[in-house]
């Protein structure tokens, strides 16, 4: 299912789909229904920082789509990838970077982060990532909890992260909307938001919701859900309500009249049923993922990616057939029962089955070295005979996460015309000793390891021990 990414403010959801590719040319005589309410009331104010043309030469380039170019060159112009090849000439005014011995890749995209909503320092006042007040809180948006001063963003930048998805936590069955941002510091969340990215919805399977609600508040039983049965009933009840809400809006779109009363929670769920909002679902166990895939068919939506997915290797064939991505750690396991069967070869086994594999972090530490996490999985796969070329494994870090976020038409690979989100690595990025030397976002050099004076310092760090230190 291809989804329109360009959520034009003021256009009702049903019309967005019909307006793919032609949003600006809609006939003026459309009904009032189109402007029933603003679907993008907190729009991105991000625009690329000034950038001059850059030609990177003599690099080992992994283009992010599975190809490798030795002694390659890459031209960045006007914030975009302008050309990729083996013998490009520098246009006038371009800075040339000799990347001999170094590697170049698309920027890493982490599709599972809680930076900003669970920032550093992790004090009680900063716990803005889970609206635990009810098991279904589709009405909350993670962008309203993001603290843009989280120093974690800068550490992630030094690890080559150019875009990320910030999700609500996994306490709730339906936790609320995620937000996709460029990893560019800003005074405001809007100043980080990835322009025209689709919205996403965080849902969660398994132990967390039933623990938080069923066993919550120190009472026994706390409330629903108390079991995995209750989890499923909770989602289905919500989808039934959303279906009814959507039906009212569809009728209104078609027939006009008095618009239905708005419901913030159901706006989001109906957005999923309309295909505008992408579902990202925390789910560890194979059997649960299979139930969720059936449930999505029951209500006519699609799970874009399962997250954590430590048992994806058990149903990699079914995930490939359905078409869901698995966003995974390389080797986390054992911290709870649903993580007990984690294995180091999960990612390559999913890839081998033809399913979409993604390396994610869910961690302010892990996000700083997702390349190493991919390297571990890649190497462990090779040792059991799954011989994936390194340049193909890089799809786990950039293109596949971009697909899962609906931004792969604009970033995630070094295809000419895409955003110049690029990392120059000091060597093979699948080595523990390799560091990101330079990180470009939309062509602007946002991190340069050779120039620590220029490292970003968040407000929180000003005047504190360690301010401006090498991190």
């Amino acid at each position, binding site marked *: 299912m291809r989804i329109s990414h360009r959520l034009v403010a003021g256009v009702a959801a049903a019309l967005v789909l019909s307006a793919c590719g032609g949003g600006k040319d809609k006939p003026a005589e459309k009904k009032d229904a189109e402007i029933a309410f603003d679907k993008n009331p907190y729009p991105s104010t991000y625009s690329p920082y000034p950038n001059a043309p850059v030609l990177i030469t003599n690099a080992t380039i992994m283009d992010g789509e599975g190809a490798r170019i030795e002694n390659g060159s890459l031209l960045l112009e006007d914030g975009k990838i302008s050309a990729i090849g083996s013998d490009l000439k520098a246009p006038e005014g371009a800075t040339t970077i000799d990347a001999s011995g170094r590697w170049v890749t698309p920027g890493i995209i982490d599709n599972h982060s809680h930076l900003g909503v669970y920032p550093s320092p992790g004090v009680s006042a900063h716990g803005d990532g889970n609206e635990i007040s009810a098991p279904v809180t589709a009405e909350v948006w993670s962008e309203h909890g993001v603290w843009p001063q989280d120093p974690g963003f800068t*550490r992630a930048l030094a690890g080559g992260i150019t875009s990320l998805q910030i999700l609500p936590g996994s306490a709730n069955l339906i936790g609320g909307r995620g937000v996709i941002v460029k990893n560019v510091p800003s005074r405001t969340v809007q100043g980080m938001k990835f322009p025209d990215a689709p919205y996403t919805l965080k849902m969660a399977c398994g132990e967390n919701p039933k623990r938080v609600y069923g066993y919550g508040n120190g009472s026994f039983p706390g409330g629903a859900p108390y079991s995995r049965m209750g989890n499923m009933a909770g989602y289905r009840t919500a989808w039934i309500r959303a279906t009814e809400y959507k039906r009212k809006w569809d009728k209104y779109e078609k027939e006009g009249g008095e618009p239905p009363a708005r419901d913030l929670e159901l706006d989001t769920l109906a957005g999923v049923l309309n295909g505008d909002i992408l579902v990202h679902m925390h789910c560890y166990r194979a059997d649960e993922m299979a139930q969720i895939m059936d449930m999505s068919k029951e209500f006519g939506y699609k799970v874009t990616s399962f997250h954590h997915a430590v048992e994806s290797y*058990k*149903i990699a064939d079914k995930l490939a057939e359905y078409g869901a991505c698995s966003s995974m750690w390389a080797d986390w396991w*054992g*911290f709870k029962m649903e993580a007990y069967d984690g*294995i180091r070869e999960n990612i390559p086994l999913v890839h081998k089955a033809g399913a979409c594999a993604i390396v994610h972090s869910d961690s302010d530490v892990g996000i700083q070295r997702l390349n190493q996490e991919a390297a571990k999985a890649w190497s462990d796969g090779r040792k059991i005979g799954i011989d994936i070329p390194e340049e193909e494994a890089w799809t786990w870090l950039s293109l596949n996460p971009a697909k899962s976020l609906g931004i792969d038409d604009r970033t995630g690979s070094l295809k000419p015309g895409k955003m110049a989100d690029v990392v120059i690595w000091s060597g093979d990025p699948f080595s523990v000793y390799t560091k990101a030397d330079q990180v470009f976002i939309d062509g602007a050099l946002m991190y340069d390891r050779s120039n620590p004076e220029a490292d970003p310092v968040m407000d929180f760090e000003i005047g504190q*021990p*360690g301010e401006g230190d*090498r991190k």
Partner: protein
Amino acid sequence: MRKSLATALAAFTCLTAPALADTYVVRGENVWTGTSQGTIKNGVVVIEDDRITAVGGASTAVPDGASEISAKWVTPGLISAYSQTGLVEVGAEDPTNDAMAAASAYSISLNAADGFNPDATAIDVTRIEGFTRLAVAPQTGNTMFGGQGFIADTSGDLDTPLKEKAFTVIALGEAGAGLTGGSRASAMATLKAALDDGRAYPARYIANTEGDALKRLDAQAFSQAARGQQLIMVRAHRASDLNAVMDLAEEQPNLKFVIVGADEGWRVAPRLAELDIPVIVDAFSNLPSSFERLAATSENASRLAEAGVTFAIANVGDSVEQARLASQIAGNAVANGLDFDDALAALTVAPAEIFNMTGYGTLAPGGHADVVAWDGDPLEVTSSPVAVIIDGETQSLESRQTRLRDRYLNLDESERPMAYHKP
């Protein structure tokens, strides 16, 4: 747990005479000794019974009939300097988690070795990544005292000997404050009172059952540490907290400390070196994730090395299931300025020194035969062991994880359900 030599090593070794099954010749393109021999190119380590008998170059005399192992790298068995490996099966399932006691009537007398399970899945998972020994530290529960830590091997043998009560665990800083009534002052007062109680044991307890801070059994358990005869493992990060520990060390110079965490250790590194207080650091920690680690930097380890501080590297941040990641963390420390040899020493020589494990942590004639052969640089994320030897015996390279993996390599259920797949 232990597989036959043939099973464990078939792919990587050529077996000569099985008659001398306890004699091994381990050859490495690089043999990192951790001694003045440095890294020997095309080196040889000879193992007879449970001891290393020779370490040298390619021409080293080797006994006839020994089993041969060849690999890219050979190192001493890695030592996990801080974890709860073997105390926990599933972290969130309390009945399987013996890492701490949140509601115990006892504190320092809690002997974590009583909860050690050689069958724990994490033992195999950790061993097959090259770790042969573990310093297992209980976590703190309802007091600042975690109890008694111990040293174990990763053989998984039910009768494996433990070095029990090797150290006692204490939380200072934010955690210690929270566990003693709410301030750092109360944490330090409690610790000092406990030290007095420990030193006064048994005299003070003949007539009374309670001291100022400790009841009888806890005072008994603290009596060695309080007299400088047992290592005290303190958890602290903030520079001023580290200074408080060092003030105490100067005030009571017989006490023996190791500090875990020490994220701001680099700021007080010269004093740590001068007082010869070792630290166990996590080189991943570079965020101001709490107010006690505002100056955390991934260069902590390299700066401590520069100042001459003895330090081990461990996965302090994720110490329950993932002790195995300490080698990746050490590799990252190298990427952030630490010398490679110092990084490998932080996984071998240094923890052996900190925990007084004589004969471990190096490849030296006469030493205990904990040896790991690797398919590449041991700190590299793409490397893994091809042979793990503990006390002269080759170990299985299987874990519950590799067994699950092997079951699901092929998802074909056309003949029988997966439950019948037993590779």
